[in-house]
């Protein structure tokens, strides 16, 4: 026992005893060297291992926080141990409670913030320091209005767990640990952590706010929300959460509780409602915008698809009509325009390329036809591959690229082993090489393998072409009619027209019916497709051969309006006019000569040498000069 005036270890002068509690007697002393007041707490347990004690005090000595009293030392005096701690001048909260003081929310929030800070400091120490005895009596309010948390104790054994136990403010798990010790079953004790202090802090505030002691054994203790308190609902919620019976529902750390305090206004129901509305409106708007963007993208895609379909139909109509110029222009645009390429399937692209190949093929531009057919085949699906491969090979043959054509035949034999396409391509090769009989044989073999279909159609046409080359018009007509029975298109109608014209020009008994059939062919071409200059001239030829010269002239006059720069039209007009003994023949001859000079080589190549000589003679006769 120490008395006022006693000098301890030549350092401390005892002023007075200021209290005694579970842990021992507490003296106010004066540090003679530091010249300041300190608190000396006698440690009650005489059986403590001094080295452990010193270790623990060493840990506490390293704690420096504005809301903690500084621990200076541990001293031994007359077989007792004393801890020397900073003296904190001020009143503890129990003093204010007992005085009936009603705390304002701003005061409580300020202290709560400070207490959370200091608890976080203690709990984050290495090793963590759990106070275990937070209560109003251990919270001093200093003169400057800040708090100081005192009496965080030394707990070295399970017995000390009992010492540091204040029933009214202890957490449920701390209470259970004490009960286990008192019942002699300490093996059921759980490890305490920072959440114990958080509960005690909550219980302390419960007392501060309600004036009622939160006795843990009192099962009728009302919740904080059950009181009519002059405090905001968010603040009450924070304290309630700190006092959650279930440890998992409490704040997980003092830092989290501090964060809640700092954001207390964000706990307000009104604030939460506004934030919720903000989030909801953002989500709804976001969904609308994203949906709008998706619709925009798909809408564009859809429009592009519709436009492509329209343009594709137009492209096909140009091809069907034989308008190769328009078809090639539109086809090139479809293939090169990224807007269409993005929505175009491979099948559609292959079809366009194949049509383009057909256009070039009809113009006898076999180089470009090969390129387009090849690309078409490379993009074709299984349904079209055979046909595209065939046309690719035939274009190669027409372009005299026989070795490449043979390579394609090998591919065709491998991919389409039972198909007649191989025979057809061989027929084309032989035809181009001038082996017409061999070509005819291959064509017949093709027809034996396939009676209907694209390959049969092409074989009949080839046979007809072979017959035309031999001026065997009757056989040619028969072959072309067979092709026509499979598919009546512009190509076969033109060939038929020429074949019937050839038959009609022979001057036999059936000439009128042949010429009539020729006229029917050209009439169909005019109605269904369009008459090229050559078609028109042949058509007029059919009229003139059947004796209808005025019909021929009328036709040619119409043709001249459509093809005003085609010399062949005026050549034919000159011939018809001559047959009619029309004086306009000279004018037609002059026009034909002028246009002939301007004509391309491809046009000039279509003019028969006999026809050219005939015109030259007419020119000399009617105009009296040389062509």
């Amino acid at each position: 026992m120490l008395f006022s005036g006693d000098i301890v270890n030549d350092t401390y002068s005892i002023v007075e005893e200021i209290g005694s509690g579970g842990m021992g007697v507490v003296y106010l002393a004066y540090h003679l060297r530091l010249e300041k007041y300190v608190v000396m707490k006698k440690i009650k347990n005489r059986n403590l291992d001094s080295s452990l004690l010193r270790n623990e005090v060493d840990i506490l000595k390293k704690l420096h926080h504005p809301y903690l009293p500084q621990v200076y030392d541990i001293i031994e005096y007359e077989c007792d141990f004393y801890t020397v701690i900073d003296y904190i001048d001020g009143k503890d909260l129990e003093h204010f409670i007992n005085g009936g003081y009603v705390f304002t929310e701003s005061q409580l929030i300020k202290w709560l913030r400070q207490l959370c800070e200091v608890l976080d400091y203690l709990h984050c120490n290495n090793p963590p320091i759990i106070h275990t005895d937070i209560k109003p009596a251990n919270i001093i309010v200093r003169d400057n209005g800040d708090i100081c948390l005192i009496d965080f104790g030394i707990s070295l054994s399970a017995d000390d767990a009992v010492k540091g136990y204040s029933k009214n403010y202890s957490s449920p798990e701390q209470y259970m640990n004490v009960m286990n010790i008192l019942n002699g079953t300490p093996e059921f004790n759980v490890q305490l952590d920072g959440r114990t202090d958080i509960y005690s802090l909550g219980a302390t505030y419960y007392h501060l706010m309600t004036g009622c002691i939160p006795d843990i054994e009192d099962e009728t203790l009302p919740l904080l929300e059950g009181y009519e308190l002059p405090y905001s609902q968010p603040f009450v919620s924070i304290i309630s959460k700190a006092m959650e019976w279930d440890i998992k529902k409490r704040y997980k750390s003092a830092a989290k509780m501090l964060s809640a305090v700092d954001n207390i206004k964000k706990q307000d129901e009104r604030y939460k409602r506004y934030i919720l509305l903000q989030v909801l409106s953002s989500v709804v708007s976001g969904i609308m915008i994203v949906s709008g963007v998706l619709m925009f993208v798909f809408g564009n895609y859809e429009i592009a698809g519709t436009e492509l379909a329209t343009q594709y139909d137009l492209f096909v109509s140009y091809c069907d009509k034989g308008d190769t110029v328009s078809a090639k222009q539109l086809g090139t645009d479809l293939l090169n325009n990224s807007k269409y390429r993005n929505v175009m399937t491979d099948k559609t692209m292959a079809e366009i390329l194949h049509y383009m190949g057909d256009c070039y093929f009809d113009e006898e531009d076999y180089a470009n036809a090969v390129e387009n057919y090849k690309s078409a085949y490379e993009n074709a699906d299984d349904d079209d591959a055979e046909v595209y491969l065939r046309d690719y090979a035939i274009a190669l043959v027409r372009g005299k690229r026989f070795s490449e054509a043979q390579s394609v035949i090998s591919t065709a034999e491998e991919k389409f082993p039972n198909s007649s396409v191989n025979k057809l391509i061989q027929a084309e090769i032989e035809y181009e090489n001038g082996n017409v009989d061999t070509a005819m044989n291959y064509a017949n073999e093709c027809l034996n393998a396939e009676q209907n279909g694209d390959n049969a159609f092409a074989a009949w046409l080839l046979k007809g072409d072979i017959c035309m080359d031999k001026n065997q018009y009757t056989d040619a007509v028969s072959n072309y009619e067979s092709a026509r029975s499979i598919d009546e298109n512009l190509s076969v109608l033109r060939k038929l027209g020429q074949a019937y014209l050839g038959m009609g020009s022979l001057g036999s008994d059936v000439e009128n019916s042949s010429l009539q059939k020729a006229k029917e062919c050209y009439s169909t071409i005019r109605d269904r497709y369009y008459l090229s200059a050559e078609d028109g001239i042949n058509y007029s030829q059919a009229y003139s051969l059947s004796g209808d010269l005025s019909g021929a002239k009328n036709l040619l006059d119409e043709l001249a309006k459509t093809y005003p720069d085609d010399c062949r039209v005026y050549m034919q007009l000159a011939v018809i006019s001559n047959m009619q003994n029309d004086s306009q023949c000279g004018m037609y001859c002059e026009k034909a000569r002028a246009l002939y000079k301007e004509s391309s080589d491809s046009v000039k190549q279509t003019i028969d040498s006999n026809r050219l000589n005939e015109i030259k003679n007419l020119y000399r006769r009617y105009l009296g000069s040389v062509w």
Partner: protein
Amino acid sequence: MLLVLGIALIIVGIILLAVTQIVLWRKIKKFNKEWEDEQNEMS
């Protein structure tokens, strides 16, 4: 049709976002002021 609907949705979404955010921002600002006033009264 889809294109027009998409554009309309984007515009409406942007307007809705702008209007609601402005309105709520004002409400939160007013709440903050009221909160401060309440705290000062309690002090």
